């Protein structure tokens, strides 16, 4: 029985046993449902083997929403534990595990797939391409992300979750202080999905560089595409750093090396350094596509072209370069001298300048516009003031001398939630509402959408503004409880109420999807928002080849030109279209990666070696495979086009 003991959870509780039962029942229900409705073949042919960027985008979207739920439940548990002084709801070990998984899931497995969802779905449509440059690599990226996320998610029922924070600093994350397998899960699961992100980076850069429609020069790309290009440049720059750091950390934990140990020449602080060399640009990887989505939405619903296109592009490029020069501001208190701290202080403050340029450009776009207060626009308008507050507190934190006061307090927690929630989460929900009709062929209900916007905004303010105050009063982050004498109790209760209101908002979003599936009208046409860029020029639902005829553009708003200025968007004739074939290899390879990761977590060497051989076999198979894709005939295209036109 010794073999099986390693899979036991070190600190079990009733909630975890209940989760085990719930997970088991859900798996049984899914399998039974698929079998009963005879959907296995459909699932395999249409989704698991697909290389279509639109379907991959939708799968990213669903994964992100599920992970938002998981990370949100963690958040509620954290706020419930801190709601009253000396609370006994979670024990300290459990609290550590919950805040660690909350951070990792929200950043790596919620925000990242959310932005990948929009990158995948929107970018090829926006540049008039048929698919991404490497469709099968794209599928592999998704499945690596997905199985990495699944590996991370099973940690809390098999073997125990990571408990050293989402930053997983050594030596705390080393074997001496984190003895159960949780941190192995952290190292390996993030590694697997990180490799997927790196591949997406290469794929998207190639797509944008090589596959733009005729006439679309770099400076005539829609702003979202620009933001994706810059984002992926950062991904390709910094993801190798986390890949190497995670590999070194894995070797420390599994093979007894001393890269980040405190003995034998190891350097524990180097982990913090490498982590933030990746970690800081990572937050810009999240926020830049969000800026891109806001740019699209604000110019659409203000009825004006985007103000200051060139300065928007320039500020994103400057942000991308600066984002790689500021990482040490995450550890001003680690012991380096004033020179280093001053340097990183100044570069950090400089980022506020290009960001400010962008804020003013959005305001000037709104100026004298005919603003339509739709749900996506509400999120964008809510973003501007709330994000500015988050940015201002960021400048406060950037002053290294003052940072000694704020470091690792709730003030910091309030700051980064104040940038990430109005910045990234609002953008993702705005993008979700904005692109929903393009993806699924019907609109989300506006009335329920407005309710969810207002509950989210009010809940956000209630949850995070009190933390600024308790943080300045000295409440430390990651402390599982506090005494009544500190006086933090009432404000933490307000935060808990705010978190509850945010949960209601999420429930409203889910209800909105259900309601709209049942009651929304389906005859909305291809352009329900009266939008401006190319993704709205094709039919809804989008045919698999995207555009029957390659579009020809003369500005960043090709579709607007076609609607208002009589620009001929589709001058050519229908020709047969070359499309890539579906393939099961990416899914299978992802599944083998899952087995490899699981075996490594528990030091099961034989299955690890076997799965490594399996991965190499998949790659060899791909190298020798003859797959030239297929053609869609002109007749078939014309039939599809007639049908879709009729549906309008």
């Amino acid at each position, binding site marked *: 029985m010794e073999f099986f003991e390693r899979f036991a959870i070190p600190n079990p509780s009733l909630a975890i046993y209940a989760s085990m039962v719930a997970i088991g029942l859900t798996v049984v229900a899914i399998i039974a449902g698929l079998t009963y409705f005879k959907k296995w073949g459909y699932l395999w042919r249409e989704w698991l083997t697909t290389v279509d960027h639109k379907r991959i985008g939708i799968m990213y979207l669903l994964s992100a929403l599920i992970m938002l739920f998981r990370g949100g439940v963690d958040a509620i548990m954290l706020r419930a534990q801190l709601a009253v002084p000396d609370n006994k709801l979670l024990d300290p070990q459990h609290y550590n595990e919950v805040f660690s998984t909350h951070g990792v899931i929200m950043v790596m497995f919620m925000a990242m797939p959310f932005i990948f969802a929009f990158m995948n779905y929107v970018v090829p449509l926006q540049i008039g391409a048929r698919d991404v440059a490497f469709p099968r690599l794209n599928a592999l990226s998704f499945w690596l992300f997905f199985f990495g996320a699944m590996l991370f998610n099973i940690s809390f029922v098999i073997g125990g979750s990571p408990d050293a924070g989402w930053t997983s600093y050594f030596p705390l994350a080393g074997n001496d202080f984190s003895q159960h397998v949780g941190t192995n899960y952290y190292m390996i699961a993030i590694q697997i999905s990180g490799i997927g992100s790196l591949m997406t980076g290469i794929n998207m850069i190639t797509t944008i560089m090589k596959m733009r429609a005729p006439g679309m020069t770099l400076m005539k790309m829609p702003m979202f595409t620009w933001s994706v290009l810059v984002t992926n*440049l950062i991904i390709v720059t910094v993801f190798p750093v986390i890949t190497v750091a995670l590999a070194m950390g894995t070797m420390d934990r599994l093979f007894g090396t001393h890269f980040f140990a405190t003995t034998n020449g190891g350097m524990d602080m180097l982990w913090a*350094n490498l982590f933030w060399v990746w970690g800081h640009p990572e937050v810009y990887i999240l926020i830049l596509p969000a800026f891109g989505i806001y740019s699209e939405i604000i110019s659409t619903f203000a009825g004006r072209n985007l103000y200051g296109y060139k300065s928007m592009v320039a500020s994103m490029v400057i942000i991308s370069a600066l984002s790689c020069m500021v990482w040490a501001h995450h550890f001003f208190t680690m012991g380096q001298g*004033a*020179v280093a701290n001053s340097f990183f202080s100044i570069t950090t403050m400089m980022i506020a300048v290009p960001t400010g340029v962008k804020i003013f450009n959005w305001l000037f776009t709104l100026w004298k516009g005919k603003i339509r207060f739709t749900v996506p626009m509400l999120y964008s308008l809510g973003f501007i003031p709330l994000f500015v507050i988050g940015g201002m507190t960021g400048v406060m934190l950037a002053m290294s001398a003052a940072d000694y006061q704020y470091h690792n307090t709730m003030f910091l927690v309030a700051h980064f939630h104040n940038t990430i929630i109005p910045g990234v989460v609002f953008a993702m929900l705005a993008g979700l509402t904005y692109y929903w009709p393009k993806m699924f062929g019907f609109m989300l209900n506006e009335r329920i959408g407005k309710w969810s916007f207002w509950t989210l905004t009010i809940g956000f303010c209630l949850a995070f503004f009190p933390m600024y105050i308790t943080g300045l009063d000295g409440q430390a982050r990651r402390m599982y409880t506090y005494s009544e004498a500190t006086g933090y109790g009432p404000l933490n209760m307000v935060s808990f109420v705010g978190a509850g209101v945010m949960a209601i908002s999420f429930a409203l979003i889910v209800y909105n999807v259900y309601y709209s599936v049942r009651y929304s009208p389906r005859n909305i046409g291809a352009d329900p928002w009266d939008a401006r860029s190319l993704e709205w020029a094709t039919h809804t639902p989008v045919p698999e080849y995207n555009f029957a005829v390659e579009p020809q553009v003369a500005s960043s708003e090709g579709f607007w030109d076609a609607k208002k200025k009589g620009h001929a968007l589709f001058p050519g004739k229908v020709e047969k279209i070359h499309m890539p074939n579906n393939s099961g290899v990416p899914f299978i390879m992802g599944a083998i990666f899952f087995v490899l990761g699981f075996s490594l977590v528990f030091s099961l060497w034989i299955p690890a070696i076997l799965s490594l051989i399996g991965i190499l076999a998949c790659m060899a198979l791909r190298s020798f495979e003859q797959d030239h894709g297929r053609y869609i005939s002109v007749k078939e295209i014309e039939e599809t086009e007639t049908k879709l036109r009729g549906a309008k």
Partner: protein
Amino acid sequence: MSELFPRKQIIGFVFSLVLTAAALAVYFLKLSFAQGMVVLVVTAFVQALLQLVVFMHAGESEDKWVIYGKVFFMIAMALITVFGTLLIFLWDM
């Protein structure tokens, strides 16, 4: 004739062998640590650029400025990372 004798590639190949030999010589000659590292760093970077230009055809397509731009961006970022880390851990710790 030039098709039969790819001069650029052969010169590149010989030069890359010379660079390899120079790097290998660090092991056999009694150089100080600092001298050896300088030789290794210089030969490594020249070697990488040589491979990129001669054998990976970086400058031969129309969008060569995109490729070179990305290479130099990446080199700049790598140098910033390395020197920033040195600043934090060695020069100002």
